[in-house]
């Protein structure tokens, strides 16, 4: 089952790279970043963790891997971020929420929308976390250099 998740998440992330017109040479990395992020999320959820913290950890890994790829290949981080984060994005849930709204099931709809907002926030926190670490490392190195 895990193998199927690995393969499908790789394909999904790389295909989103094509849909978003990512540079050709970045597609393989896009798929890798997306796959690792999703697998971390999947395993954590399987172990019984709630989806919101699982999303935070998944997106942290995505951000760290993207940061590394961006440094190595000297391209803006957004290229790896965007398609890598796609498997974690609560698109399916957002769709579910909207469907409940138009079906007049407001009770579930509001519940699902709140979950979507939480998950979007979790992704943003995860993505920002690696930026914070990056800035801290950079400043520390600059400071050590000055000493």
């Amino acid at each position, binding site marked *: 089952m895990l193998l*199927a*998740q690995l*393969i*499908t*998440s790789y*394909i*999904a992330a790389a*295909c*989103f*790279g*094509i*849909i*978003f*017109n*990512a*540079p*050709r040479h*970045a597609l393989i990395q896009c798929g890798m970043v997306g796959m690792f992020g*999703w697998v971390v999320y999947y395993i954590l959820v399987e172990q019984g963790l709630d989806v919101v913290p699982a999303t935070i950890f998944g997106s942290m890994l995505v951000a760290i891997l993207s940061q590394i790829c961006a440094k190595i290949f000297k*391209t*803006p981080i*957004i*290229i790896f971020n*965007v398609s890598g*984060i*796609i*498997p974690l*994005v*609560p*698109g*399916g849930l*957002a*769709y*579910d*929420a*909207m*469907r409940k*709204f*138009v*079906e007049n099931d407001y009770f579930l709809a509001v519940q699902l929308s709140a979950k*979507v907002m939480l998950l*979007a*926030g979790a*992704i*943003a926190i995860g*993505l*920002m976390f690696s930026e914070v670490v990056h800035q801290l490392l950079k400043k520390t190195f600059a400071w050590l250099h000055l000493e």
Partner: protein
Amino acid sequence: MSAQPGSVAKVCLLAGKIMLESGAETYRVEDTMNRIAASLGLENAESYATPTGIQFSTEGEASYFRRISNRSNDLQKIADVNSISRQITAQSLDAKEALLLLKGIQHNSETFPFWLQLIASALASGSFAIMFGGSWADFAPSCIAGAGGYAAMIGFDKLLEIRFIAEFVASFLIAVIAVISIKAEFGQYMDKIIIGAVMPLVPGLHITNAVRDLMAGHLIAGISKGVEATLTAIAIGAGVAVLFAFLPH
């Protein structure tokens, strides 16, 4: 190195416009514009980007404005503009050369042909159906529905130039294909097929970008992106729901 303020502003605005139209985050756009301005010798330049327009002003000069009317996702262009901005910062390009290069990028056609994007959205849809807990029987119908929906989205967007209607029609078509494939006993779970197939249309990226912009303090950009994402989600949800409203239970 000091160039004419007007021509520097032109370079900055074009770079910002291309980036915003390709779906870059607003803070990155402002950062790039300020960096280009500083390296080309414009001190105290200020830029203000929102998803629908950019303003750029320098001390003692007129301030400039550009309207952003259509936005899509084109990471290649963001990477290209980024590399030009790096070259400008390294002082190996002047304003005139940079403007020529940027104009070239603006008119570049897409990296991947349409048929390849269609195949990609089909495969992505099928994969998502599996990832969200569907069975392998749902892979093929989700692929077909995803490709059909993506093609309808692009086609109607070109035809009508109203994103909302294009997304509505696309998700309606996805629901139709899903219902037909379930009726023909071609797939197993209708919900998984539909969720997989709408993924290429769903504004997941916009939702995330909106939250990031809000957290970074770009309040107007964050809110307008959030509204854009909500509109898309409404269109997709409504397209599917309309079919279910007519379907006999």
